[in-house]
């Protein structure tokens, strides 16, 4: 199967003897680079990442607790027209998802119109009943989202999943460009790439634009992190630094008289907007998990009083549930009155008996995901699984079918990648980041993730995937 896929899938640079226009510069460089140059550049990049401390902690197994995410020096390139298409599709999708969240915690018209089963929404672990009937600033729930896109042909893109809670990876998007600019100043210059470096400013403006009504003066924005042991801690500190805001932990914040304050060397200081990178259940021990020490007691009460904005809003996760995902095209039609620009991957809901029997029959050719999992944990890639693994998974499926969805094994596009054996095609996806405050903004590009192992389709960094710089070219195409 993997060998079949190799010939079948779309390569971003083009087939062996051709080269797509946007890759010409890179291909010429690759062909003319003196022997050993790639190896040297690759090592240099690794050195820069290590020295600046751009690491990623992985939850399982031993080894180096501060692992580097492999960085590949060959960029992934999209031209202007491809990006225009993607960005209009992404904007549309985010508007619909946000409208859906507002509806879930508001009038619930989507449910009442019979567009989605009520129990799928109301009994979903991502549903936060405390949000019902609560207005939010500018009507924005998913201020920061990351939407995973895969490509299977020149004009065929699919949305793999939506991340509406606390998507990570944007720091790699920024650092990858920084490193590429240091390593290949000429190439970066010649290629005329749309810049991404203003992302932190856009993020800060987005967060400021959703300050609560009760906020007087310039809103004080903070980034709430679970702390140094979190896998994305580097990103938290990077973003806080780039925005010039305080990076706080739960213990740094205190609620008094329904206002949120941070403890500073000058005493207590009022906080208006919290960009939180901790999950809903940990936000406030008085409302959610009582033994969580990551959050702030009383935070939800302050939120309810309209004295602070939490971004993303608690309960936004209802929109990125993998079972809810299948209803997104219908959300676009229902809330926007438009036809979806970007398509979903065809998906079988294992909770539906007919779908389940199809999935069980075709398990060896499908990808099966836990609807509540993330980061590639608890996922089955049928074509790569052994007989025993398939049998074992079938048992799990039968036991709780509603917790799984299945999708065809897509022939993800490949991109030339520098690996031990030289330059070879490896599968990639793309996570663009979308900001939503009073307006919607996208950083041109996003994070390209690459499966470093030959034939592998799993790009998650927790599963050994790497990243590439993503270039959106100015003005061509």
């Amino acid at each position, binding site marked *: 199967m993997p060998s079949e896929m190799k010939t079948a899938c779309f390569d971003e640079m083009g087939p062996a003897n051709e080269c797509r226009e946007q890759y010409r510069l890179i291909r010429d460089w690759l062909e003319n680079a003196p022997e050993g140059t790639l190896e040297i550049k690759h090592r240099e990049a690794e050195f820069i990442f290590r020295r*600046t401390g751009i690491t990623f902690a992985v939850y399982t197994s031993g080894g180096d607790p501060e692992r580097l995410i492999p960085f590949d020096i060959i960029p992934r390139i999209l031209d202007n027209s491809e990006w225009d298409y993607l960005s209009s599709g992404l904007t549309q999708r985010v508007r619909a998802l946000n409208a859906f969240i507002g509806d879930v915690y508001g009038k619930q018209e989507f449910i009442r119109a019979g567009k989605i089963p009520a129990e799928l929404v109301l009994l979903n672990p991502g549903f936060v009943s405390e949000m019902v009937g609560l207005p939010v600033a500018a009507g924005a729930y998913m201020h920061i989202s990351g939407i995973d896109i895969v490509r299977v042909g020149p004009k065929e893109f699919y949305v793999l999943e939506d991340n509406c809670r606390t998507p990570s990876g944007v720091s790699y998007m920024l650092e990858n460009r920084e490193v590429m600019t240091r390593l290949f100043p000429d190439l970066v210059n010649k290629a005329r790439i749309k810049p991404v470096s203003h992302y932190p400013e856009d993020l800060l403006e987005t967060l400021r634009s959703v300050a609560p009504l009760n906020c007087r003066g310039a809103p004080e924005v903070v980034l709430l992190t679970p702390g140094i042991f979190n896998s994305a801690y580097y990103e938290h*500190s990077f973003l*806080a630094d780039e925005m010039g805001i305080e990076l706080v932990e739960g213990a*740094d914040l205190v609620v008094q008289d329904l206002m949120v304050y941070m*403890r500073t*060397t*000058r005493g207590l200081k009022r906080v208006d907007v919290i960009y939180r990178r901790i999950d809903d259940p940990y936000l406030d021990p008085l409302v959610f998990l009582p033994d969580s020490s990551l959050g702030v007691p009383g935070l939800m009460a302050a939120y309810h009083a309209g004295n602070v904005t939490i971004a993303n809003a608690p309960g936004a996760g209802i929109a990125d549930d993998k079972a809810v995902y299948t209803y997104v095209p219908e959300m676009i039609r229902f809330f926007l009155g438009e036809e979806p620009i970007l398509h979903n991957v065809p998906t079988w809901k294992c909770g539906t008996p007919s779908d389940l029997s199809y999935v069980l029959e075709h398990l060896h050719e499908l990808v099966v995901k836990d609807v509540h999992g993330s980061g590639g944990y608890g996922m089955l890639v049928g074509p790569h699984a052994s007989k025993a693994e398939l049998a074992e998974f079938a048992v799990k499926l039968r036991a709780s079918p509603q917790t799984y969805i299945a999708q065809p094994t897509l022939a993800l596009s490949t991109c030339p990648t520098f690996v031990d054996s030289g330059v070879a095609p490896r599968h990639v996806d793309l996570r663009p980041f979308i900001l939503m405050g009073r307006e919607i903004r996208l950083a041109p590009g996003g994070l390209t993730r690459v499966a470093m192992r030959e034939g592998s389709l799993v790009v998650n960094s927790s599963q050994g995937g790497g990243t590439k710089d993503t270039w959106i070219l100015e003005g061509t195409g």
Partner: protein
Amino acid sequence: MLSRTAENIYWLARYVERAENIARLLDVALRMSAVPQESSDGTNEWHSAIVASGCEDHFYEAHERAGAQEVIHYLTRDRENPSSIISCFAAARSNARTVRTALSTSAWEAINSTWLEMAELDDKDFSPEHLRKFLDWVKERSLLFGGAVASTMMHRDGYWFNRIGALIERADSTARILDVKYHVLLPEYETIGGTIDFYQWATILRSVSALRAYHWVYRDRVKPWLVAELLILKPEMPRSLAYCYHELTQNLDHLANAYGGARGECHRQAGKTDAFLRYGKIDHIFEQGLHEFLTGFIEDTDALGLEITNQYLT
């Protein structure tokens, strides 16, 4: 600035300074162990290094005697010892990582690359013949960090907390070094002393990099009471108690002024000790009792650290 951030910066500076001080103590012990001698109280340089490092109780819980090998291991790389050089650098790096955003890139990289290079060290690097190279590296890394902080960080609260941490640690260290050898610094000792004493005095000076400074200040042969005066009362000597407190009060004042003028108990205590060191005379300290003075000073500095914590770091 968040109190937690300030606290991390303060401790980061203390740990780096402590690593450097421990390296100096070991450097001197190595030097002295090369001189054939028998000191009057039957102890040796390795024991002195342990006492001066402030780890005496902890060390003797696990060791019967202070031999070269045990002390070197304990003070350089023993993870059980929170004040070993390796522990200090690891703690400094962990603190730095927590407050990365409050450090300049150069200051962070100075700490992080120290930590990365540390991971490459093996047994050989700690062997007696390579130890000096390791100790030089430790001092270099500390100086690199100090330099990066001084020339790349904004001179505002983060910088001042960094300086305050380093100065508290240094004042404590210099006082301990003096206290270990206080008996050879008393004026009456000169008459009893022999040739060995030159080494004793030189040891103290070397352990705070002040042998040259002594000659520049006094243009005289080494006299014990002048050694004490240099390290206690001379404000131009950057490891003296007077220097540390002079700079401490200045940095505490910067903080108070930046924060709207509010002063607290830490300002009072620092100012009181600073005034004593600035206007005091070494004769009076000898009359009071050098040992008593130093013990009191170490306690006061400890108390000052607590007051700074109360005022700003919690």
